[in-house]
Structures are given as structure tokens and as C-alpha cells.
């Protein structure tokens, strides 16, 4: 049993970097896909709403780990052998898109219908109304839960360890396998996760307080 050295710690820090990279990758892709899901969930056309609703239900009702296995091992059967980071990013993107799409749908629909009517009465198109009237108002409401959700994404990147992607969790396993000091090693990993998540949680809460205390629209 060797001791935990600076080299180990630097290895964990480097892996933390990969956790951040994977988080950002998943989050950015997830936001793009989530925006499309939100559009589909609020579409005029009934079957578009229905189909996207089904997508959301299926993704939300499936463990992320299963999605990851399907993409990493499942696609490999068809000759798509994705690198672990790509499989993890894709899985997290799917996961994000369903949850963010649904959070944002709620925010968009909480903008009073009268705002849309006023805009359309002025001759703005549906798209212009969404872009200039609805989204700016929905975005203010959406920011706190979206930042809050980023914390979930960050923690869930640890699942990528099971397909061998060396992020923070995987790196701690590797170190612990040689040191056998689980409390120390996983404790440090936990602290590193906390150091990333805590500011985000605080930011989310601060944004929410600002939203509730700040300017409010009349009905």
C-alpha cells in the first residue's frame, strides 16, 4: 500500500478537467437538442407534440446508464464503435434534451397567452413572436432551473466511468485500485465534485431569488 501523493492528486485534477469537458459538451449539445424538443412540444401540429411527448417520456423513464449502454455497446453491434467520450456525450445529450426541453416548455407556456396575442395583433409572425416576445420572457424564468439542472448533468457524467472514460470517478477508481484507501480517494473525489457543483447550486438559487424579487410583469 503506497501513500496518496501529489501525482495522484494531479491525476485527479486532470480527470476533473475531463469531467468538466464532458459536462460542457453534454450541456451545450443538450441545450441545442432541448431547444428543438421545446419547439416540438409547443408546436401547433398535434402529432409533433405527441411524438416529442413520447420521446420525453421514454427518455425520462429510462435510466441514463441504460441509454449509455445502448449507445456504447448497442451501436457497436451495428459497426458504430464510438469512443467512450462520444458515447457518453451523446447519452447525456439525449438525457439533457428531454429534461431541458420539458423545463423550457413549462417556461414558454407560463408566458401569458395575451402576450402572444398582442404580438400577433401587431402583425408579427409566429416565429418573430417567439423570438422577440415569448423567449426573452421565458428565458428569465428558465435560467435558475437550467443552471440547477447543470448540476445534475455534472454529477451524471460519473456514469461515463463504466464505459471506461477516465473522468473524475473513473480516475478515483484507478487510484483506489492501487492504494486501497477508499475513504481518502473517494472523499477527495467527492470534494472535487462538490467544489464544482456547489457554486452552480448557489448561482441557481441566487438567480431564482433575483427573479422572484426583481421586476415582475403585470398580468
Amino acid at each position, binding site marked *: 500500500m503506497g501513500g496518496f501523493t501529489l501525482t495522484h492528486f494531479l491525476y485527479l485534477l486532470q480527470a476533473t478537467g475531463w469531467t468538466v469537458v464532458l459536462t460542457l459538451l453534454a450541456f451545450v449539445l443538450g441545450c441545442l437538442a432541448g431547444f428543438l424538443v421545446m419547439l416540438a412540444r409547443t408546436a401547433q401540429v398535434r402529432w409533433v407534440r405527441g411524438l416529442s411527448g413520447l420521446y420525453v417520456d421514454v427518455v425520462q423513464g429510462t435510466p441514463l446508464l441504460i441509454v449509455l449502454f445502448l449507445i456504447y455497446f448497442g451501436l457497436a453491434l451495428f459497426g458504430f464503435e464510438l469512443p467512450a467520450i462520444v458515447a457518453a456525450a451523446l447519452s447525456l445529450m439525449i438525457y439533457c434534451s428531454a429534461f431541458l426541453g420539458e423545463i423550457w416548455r413549462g417556461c414558454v407556456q407560463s408566458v401569458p397567452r395575451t402576450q402572444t396575442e*398582442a404580438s400577433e395583433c*401587431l*402583425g408579427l*409572425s409566429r416565429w*418573430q413572436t417567439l423570438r*422577440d416576445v415569448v423567449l426573452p*420572457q421565458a428565458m428569465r424564468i428558465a435560467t435558475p432551473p437550467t443552471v440547477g439542472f447543470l448540476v445534475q448533468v455534472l454529477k451524471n457524467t460519473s456514469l461515463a466511468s463504466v464505459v471506461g472514460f477516465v473522468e473524475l470517478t473513473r480516475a478515483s477508481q484507478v487510484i483506489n485500485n492501487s492504494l486501497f484507501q477508499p475513504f481518502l480517494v473517494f472523499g477527495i473525489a467527492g470534494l472535487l465534485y462538490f467544489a464544482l457543483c456547489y457554486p452552480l447550486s448557489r448561482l441557481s438559487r441566487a438567480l431564482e431569488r433575483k427573479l422572484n424579487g426583481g*421586476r415582475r*410583469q*403585470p398580468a
Partner: protein
Amino acid sequence: MAAAVSLRDVHKRFGEVEVLKGVSFEVAPGEVVAIIGRSGSGKSTALRCVNRLETIQSGEIELCGRRVDDPALDLRALRRDVGMVFQSYNLFPHLTVAENITLAPRRVRRTPPAEARRIAEEVLTRVGLSDKIDAYPEQLSGGQQQRVAIARSLAMEPKVMLFDEVTSALDPHLTGEVLKVMETLAKGGMTMLVVTHEMAFARRVADRVIFMHTGKVWETGPGSMLADPQTPELKEFLANGL
């Protein structure tokens, strides 16, 4: 001269409930028509059918020569001709007064920003609020917000304006300033269809008054008809207020 607005035997249902039961009336260009009637009699619905916020089941609606009930109607073209002001103002809370007013000219008519700003200044002067151009809606009183809403609509130079109980949400001491703006508009020759509970305004400003009752045009005539109601329903309505 052809009517600016005309409804012929308009029927409108919400689900099973028939809200408009064969409504017909016309508004001539430059005319001011007030619609009065009990809450629930279908006034708002009639107005909302005119600019296709609602679709109708049968009948015909025409606005400035355009068939509103045509399924292939160019909605945006229709809405260049008709403006609407709501009871709840519906200003965009995230935009300044100037931005509220210039949004449609810039997006719909591609007016350059400087020119749009000039238009905003001009319409705000008409409603007496040129000093509020950079305020946010929440910084304004209800009466001021409603005047901005009118200015916002005017910026698109509509040929017809629809007003749906625009003073009903206002304190009595604020309704006057809004009604004054509307009266000025009326004098300036704007074609106006005004749903209102302000009987004094209807009598003084409207060329014609329509009394709606249970989804029908029950009685119609010049403003003076309010002093001499013909039907018991209008008599009762005028006696009991709303």
C-alpha cells in the same frame, strides 16, 4: 362607400356553446361604433373574430375588402389593417416603451431603427407620453400603459382600431386620460370599434351604438338611443349598469 368592417350572420361556437348567434353589423370608414352589453354577451368574441384571433363556424366577415373568414387569409396582411387594444394593456414587460412601439415597425415593415424611433416619438406625442419613451412598462401607471398600448398600435398605421374594454382595469381617475386619447383619435377620422362600459363615452363619441345581448345584436342606433331604449333588455341593462 364600402364598409370598413362588416359581419354577416356570424355564428361562433366554443365547443357546444354558441356564443355568437347570427351577428350582423357594419362599420363605415371613419365611423366610431360602440358595442355595449352585459358581461358574457359576446362582445369580446365578436371583436376577436374581426381580427381572426378567433375563427367562426359560419357567416362572413370582411375587413377593408378582405374576407376574414377565408381559410387561406393572409393573417399578417389582415393585421396590417387592423390594430387592437386590450383591457389588460399587454405591453411587453421586458421591453422599454420605445422598444414596445418600434418592435412591429422594425420586424414587420423593416423600418430602419432611427426612423422607427422617430415614429415612436410621434405616436407617443399623440398620446401625451413623449417623456416616457425610455421607461419600462412597470414604471408607468395603468392609464399610461394603456396609452402606450394605443400608441404601439398606432405606429403600424392601422385603418381600423379595435378596443376591448380598454378602461375597465383602470381606476376611475385614470380612465379619463385614456378616453381622451380615444376621442382625439375618433375626431381624427380613425375607424373604431369600441367595446366599452363607459356609457357617457358611447353616447358622446360613438356615431352608432350596438347593444349585444345573449350573442345577438339586440338593438342598434345612434348614441341618443341610450336615452331612449326600445327593448326591455337594453332598458334593464342601462338601469342596472353592468
